[in-house]
């Protein structure tokens, strides 16, 4: 498996996400298959909103993916999918940066057609 190089900020987010027992438990449960946030919340003595916040922290760290299925948000532990998406978006960013550079080059090009007066 190819793992992307993580930036310092990304590593911080991963360790912050893992530094909480509830979040580690959420990761284990979500790894067994796709579970909705409400199903995940059933297992804890805390509010749905609190569980949702924990899931959001895991999401920002790239440790789970969320997919909408009807009215439910399904949570899945899938670092590979997230890494793939990140790599594709990084390539898309590079593509657009190159395009922007070429756009700027075009704007700097003097009008070779000549002025119609």
């Amino acid at each position: 498996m190819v793992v992307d190089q993580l930036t310092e900020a990304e590593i911080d987010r991963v360790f912050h996400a893992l530094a909480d027992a509830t979040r580690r438990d959420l990761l284990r449960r979500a790894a067994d298959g796709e579970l909705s946030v409400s199903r995940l919340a059933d297992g804890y003595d805390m509010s749905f909103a609190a569980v949702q916040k924990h899931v959001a922290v895991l999401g920002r760290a790239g440790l789970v993916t969320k997919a909408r299925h009807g009215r439910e948000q399904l949570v899945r532990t899938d670092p590979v999918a997230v890494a793939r998406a990140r790599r594709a978006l990084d390539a898309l960013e590079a593509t657009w940066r190159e395009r922007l550079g070429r756009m700027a080059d075009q704007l700097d090009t003097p009008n070779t057609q000549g002025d119609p007066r």
Partner: protein
Amino acid sequence: MTVTTIDKDTEALTLTLVADFAAPVDAVWELWADPRKLERWWGPPTYPATFVEHDLTPGALVTYFMTSPEGNKHYGWWRIGTVDAPHGLTIEDGFGDADGNPLTDKTGQLRMRLFEHDGGTRMELHDQFPSLEQMEEMLEMGMEEGLRQAVGQMDGLL
């Protein structure tokens, strides 16, 4: 040209960017509206884009192909959504065959807005992909070139 912000969302598969150009809005709009100008920036120099049909009116089909260094043609299409010349454009895009027939039922969305900013032009762009697979396929066009350019730049530094 300055890239002000770039935001990437790995869940929604979207890229949002803001870039500033030291040129009037009309000039930046022409880079999209004039197919010959568009061809000079859409694809990398060795993976150039050729626009076959190009008409920025709502509902129009724009077709283009990109030619690989080996001479293979990859066809794509845009379905023009809304047009607010010279300030905005929405496009539905996807892969196609040589006649511009869509090859996939899933399509991406591209939204572009231009407005005057600080004596120049600010461009806001929102690029959304329908699936990771389609995104990776699209990025293969021109990727080799990106690598080649990176290597070329390294050569220049050595």
